[in-house]
């Protein structure tokens, strides 16, 4: 009797014992740094408590324009990737020939490390030696003014194009999986009711695809808002400040200017924005109409 009781007690403890290492790692690597960064974001250079890191954000032209670039970048890339990904998914959801080959080819860009993609695009977009201007020249076009990553007007477009090239496949993959999970019955019912292709798409496919769409948008939005590596390689935020995003500015502030408190404050603002947007998606995901 006493023995079984003890065993029961230790059995009950077992899950906690087994969870302990994971919790410890989490505490050490996530919770502690989080609390630490909250602390330093609220401290001045001399360690005094202050909110000046946050008030400074409101007057910092560099931060505000980096934030604007981040939002423009995220919204444009997300929109283009969504429509392209949707079109590709719908196209390859049909019984066309060789679709297995197209699917694998389309997934290639996503498999490459972002750094590699950025280096490849940087070379292609080089205005003197790059493939893009080389091709345009071969068609007899004047490329003198097409300096891509060096032009304040085209630089942001250039980095968006590189992002679209790499991440449309991700959109496509999730949407295709969503499309293939839709059962045949609603389509048959729509057919019997005499719905046209467009009506079927609007009233059957889209509502049933909603969870997949929202998941895809959510994941891409979070990635786009924290974009760093591609832009760092492609333009390093330039020319001037034309493609500087919040992540790049945070990196510079922390590791170049050694102002960790201010960098932490900016990170929290970025985190907050990302969270608010994500919550919006989550809410839409939970509402059933």
């Amino acid at each position, binding site marked *: 009797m006493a023995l079984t009781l003890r065993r029961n007690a*230790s059995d009950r403890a077992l899950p906690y014992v087994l969870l302990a290492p994971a919790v410890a790692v989490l505490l050490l690597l996530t919770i502690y740094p989080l609390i630490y960064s909250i602390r330093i974001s609220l401290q001045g250079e001399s360690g005094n408590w202050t909110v000046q890191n946050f008030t400074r954000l409101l007057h910092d032209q560099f931060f505000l324009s980096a934030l604007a670039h981040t939002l423009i970048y995220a919204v444009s890339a997300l929109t283009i990737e969504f429509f392209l990904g949707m079109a590709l998914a719908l196209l390859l959801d049909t019984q066309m020939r060789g679709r297995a080959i197209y699917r694998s080819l389309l997934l290639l860009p996503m498999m490459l490390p972002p750094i590699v993609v950025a280096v490849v695009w940087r070379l292609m977009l080089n205005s*003197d030696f790059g493939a893009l201007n080389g091709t345009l020249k071969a068609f007899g076009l004047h490329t003198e003014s097409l300096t891509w990553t060096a032009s304040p007007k085209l630089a942001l477009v250039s980095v968006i194009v590189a992002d679209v090239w790499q991440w449309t496949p991700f959109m496509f993959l999730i949407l295709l999986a969503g499309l293939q999970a839709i059962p045949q019955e609603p389509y048959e019912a729509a057919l019997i009711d005499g719905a046209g292709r467009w009506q079927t798409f609007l009233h059957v496919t889209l509502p049933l695809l909603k969870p997949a769409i929202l998941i895809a948008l959510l994941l891409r939005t979070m990635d786009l808002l924290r974009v760093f590596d591609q832009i760092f390689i492609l333009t*390093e935020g*330039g020319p*001037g400040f034309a493609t500087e995003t919040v992540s790049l500015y945070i990196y510079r502030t922390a590791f*170049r200017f050694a102002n960790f408190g201010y960098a932490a404050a900016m990170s929290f603002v970025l985190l907050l924005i990302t969270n608010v947007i994500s919550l919006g998606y989550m809410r839409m995901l939970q509402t059933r109409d």
Partner: protein
Amino acid sequence: MLRPDMRSPRESRAILVVVCIALAVACYSGCRSNRAGQKTLTLAINSGVEGDALRQAAKDYEQQTGVHIQIAEFPYANLFEKELIDLNSHTGAYDLIMLDDPWFPKFASLNVLTDLGPLLKNRGQDKPDEDFIATSLALCRNPYQTGSLYALPYVGNSQLFFYRKDLFQKYNLTPPATWEEVLNAARTIGEQESSGAPGGGKVSGYVMRAAQGNAAVADFMPIFWAFGGEMFDSSGQPAVNSPEGIAALKFMIELGKYSPPGYASFNADEVGAHLLQGTAAMSINWPAWISSFNDQAKSKVAGKMEFGQMPGAKNPGRAEIGNWLIAIPGSARSPDAAMDFLLWATSAAQMKLSAERGNPPTRRSVFTDPQLQAKFPSYPAQLTSLENSRPRPRTPLWNEIENAFGIYLSKANSGELSAEDAMNQANTEIQRIVAR
């Protein structure tokens, strides 16, 4: 009861605990093993030709003295942050660090470097020997030139003016002594050589790098100084938008018209590529590129490039200095052993070896060594440039100032802002940084 092949929960737990302890012990002893035994020094170096020379020197030192040397190598972009974090948190991970001279005021202001004065005194020297070039040694003192010594100079880079002597001869141009002559030469070459490049392309009269950050600032400073600009006035207030400063930026933009399109995003690589491909005729550049020009495999202009002094304007031309220094962190575990290595590595004999490995020295005797001068014909020009060079403004806020200044220079060169607006906005931003 229990099947023979099933372990009781208690047994499993015991096994888990044993495994964990074993792992922990293995890890701990693994981390400690290299600390045991003979003396160990850890060096943080730049991955590149400068760091390579020091790494090879470290190997020799190990053989000669038995002191074990560990190397922590980082790319230029990460070295500063690694060192900053280590020095600031006093982990003592490094006994010696290589640092680029613009970082020095930051480290010195944080009080995280060892004062080398007392260590020199213990060795019977009251100051580093006279053979070191004055402009290089001045970088190692805080405050600049006059204060205590916190580092020794290892690699003595300073900018040179590169130009194509074949094209200058072809158009009867004299080596440019002023920026006005540079502009005229750039115009002549740019207009005449519309298909003169290897492969039939255009030769640009000039090429510069105006990407935001370090690149734009490094290429602008010699023009800025020559035109009489100063970043800070005599009272220490930012003054880049002085009439002289604005004139200098206007001149840079004018010169940019003879640079390849897109130069507002160029870094060292693009400038190097244009010069090596023979598609540009002049530039400000660093000595590290010299050897590439005479390498037939890389260069289409072998033997055609000349290396001269910085042109002047209102003021005589002066190059920007960019030296690699070696310092001992305040948290170093064995500062004395580190000092022994530092003195050895920066001695004339070792610096000659480093020079043979491709690094410009910081000692006069090495620059004037006949053997080396035969191997590196540009040494006399480099020595003159280095001795007349100027440092970037010595402030711990330099990284931040350079970033802001570079952004506005790049904006002006890419046509986004006028020279006046760029300089005014840059000045406001620098004021904000200094006041903070």
